[in-house]
């Protein structure tokens, strides 16, 4: 029933007075990001070794490229709720990317934007899986499932990193990635169990993306070099396999039996897709060298 307040126009002039001040201080500096990457820029030391800086760069590049991919969905998702959800996930990933890149940049003598916009393709350290095109919604969801379960396991371990900044970034990030994981699992169930068509698309997506999983878990010299600051990714594989097989079984889907593709993104040898992604991402910044935005 109608509320008891009479004269709801009372105070309307005050409302007007409060909106026009565009120079008032913002209470929300980086919306959507629980962690403020700016804090890392001003406080604390940089990585203790080149290896740790390189490791942070890897973590940051995976998150950055995934964010760039996911952000495409905003205004194109199957329903408006998903514009919001995928936008949220993209924002979280971008926030994590900024934190890792800012941190790596402290040793490399570069800002987050110099790293994102002025590195050449072969200087990026992202894995092929996050570079894969969005495809249809099934491809995006499968990519999300594979990546989010991996990131969740990885960041959980990294909360114990001997590098305090990496540990702190991951302590915040893991909560957000846990939501990404849940979002991907819920959609995997819906699409796997939903209709014949949705299950068919999920099977195609799984088969097409599975070859890039191996790269995520390949141990490298770098993992020896960073020691307790990082994690040997091979140690996460069995937990990942277990969780993914359980989700796929719940969804009525199967683990694809396909071989790994040779992927050396960690060494700067990228998929054909990354060049286009970077061209788009970097075009404006590179048109205006030295500009601030």
């Amino acid at each position, binding site marked *: 029933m*109608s509320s008891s307040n009479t004269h709801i126009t009372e105070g309307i002039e005050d409302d007007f007075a409060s909106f026009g001040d565009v120079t008032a201080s913002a209470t929300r500096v980086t919306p959507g990001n629980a962690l403020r990457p700016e804090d890392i820029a001003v406080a604390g030391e940089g990585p203790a070794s080149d290896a740790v800086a390189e490791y942070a760069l890897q973590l940051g590049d995976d998150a950055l490229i995934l964010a760039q991919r996911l*952000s495409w969905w905003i205004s*194109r998702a199957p329903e408006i709720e998903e514009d*919001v959800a995928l936008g949220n996930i993209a924002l979280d990933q971008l926030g994590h990317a900024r934190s890792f890149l800012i941190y790596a940049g402290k040793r490399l003598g570069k800002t987050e*934007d110099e790293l994102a916009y002025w590195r050449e393709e072969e200087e990026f350290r992202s894995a092929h899986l996050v570079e894969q095109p969005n495809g249809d919604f099934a491809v995006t969801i499968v990519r999300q499932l594979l990546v989010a379960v991996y990131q969740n396991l990885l960041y959980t371990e990294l909360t114990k990193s001997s590098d305090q900044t990496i540990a702190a970034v991951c302590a915040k990030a893991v909560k957000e990635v846990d939501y990404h994981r849940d979002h991907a699992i819920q959609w995997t169930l*819906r699409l796997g169990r939903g209709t014949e068509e949705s299950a068919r698309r999920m099977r195609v997506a799984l088969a097409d993306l599975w070859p890039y999983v191996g790269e995520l878990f390949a141990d490298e010299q770098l993992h020896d070099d960073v020691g307790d600051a990082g994690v040997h990714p091979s140690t996460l594989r069995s937990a990942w396999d277990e969780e993914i097989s359980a989700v796929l079984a719940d969804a009525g889907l199967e683990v694809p039996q396909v071989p790994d593709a040779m992927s050396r993104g960690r060494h700067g040898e990228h998929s054909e897709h990354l060049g286009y992604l970077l061209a788009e991402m970097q075009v404006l910044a590179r048109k205006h060298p030295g*500009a601030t*935005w």
Partner: protein
Amino acid sequence: MAEHHTKQAAAPAEGKGAHLSAVPSDAERAGQAHFDEIIAKDSRIEPRDWMPEGYRKTLTRQISQHAHSEIIGMQPEANWITRAPSLKRKAILMAKVQDEAGHGLYLYSAAETLGTPRDELNDQLLSGRAKYSSIFNYPARTWADMGAIGWLVDGAAIANQVPLCRASYGPYGRAMVRVCKEESFHQRQGFEILLELANGSDQQKQMAQDAVDRFYEPSLMMFGPPDGDSPNSQQSMAWNIKRFTNDDLRQRFVGMIVEQVKVLGLTLPDPELRFDEESGQWIHKELNWDEFKAVISGNGPCNVQRLARRREAHENGAWVREAAAAYAAQQAEKVA
């Protein structure tokens, strides 16, 4: 995620069809009296209250148009998310466009309380029967447009929407309160983008001025035709939906941006712009209402593109929504 598809539109339209019967029933007469009293007291109508059919229709049209504008309005800005020139700006822009999706959702929910389901409202948009704010049919050509859109378009939206927080229809007013808070951020962020550009290189400053030049007039037209040319305004004001006339709101907006553009160090593309002490009014140049009408009726630079993009997203998502609905039905069966 897909639960809303099965959600019932709240509040059956108690007064629906009342206008068809020549003689109002006792219940209708009592409803009308109650409605008139609430309006006279300047209090709020809620979904279950009786309301005249015209009131329901007017609100459904206005709220759904507003919702469509939020959704279509995502596109010009989404155009720059992948190319944003710094990671911080990218994050802010993504959050903004995502906010607009949220505004669309609040507003569709408010519209549904009047009895029209969201799917039907969406069909009206996709089939071209429903209108949305004509400003979104202009292209966002440069990065500076992200600034001009935030400052001028979100700014004009706020000027329009602040009084709507006190609209007589409860769910609409409450949705607008949430929306307005976020719009203030958007306006400020747009202003910051322009400020940075205006203080940057010559090229950047030129880009900022060019964007302001292009969005100034369309943003003034967001308030709708001049009062003499706006036949529905009177009734909306009598129903306490609208609180100020189009020209009134336009005046406030002009007064605001005249001051702010000085801080930016840019100019408004309006040589006739001045404050007339005698009438207490801002005098601005004659706005091109022929262009306005042309854009509204489909001839703007991006009308076709905007609707095609929305339709494409909807059609590409059909199999996803079907799967979600089928899965939800299976789950419901399990529980039963």
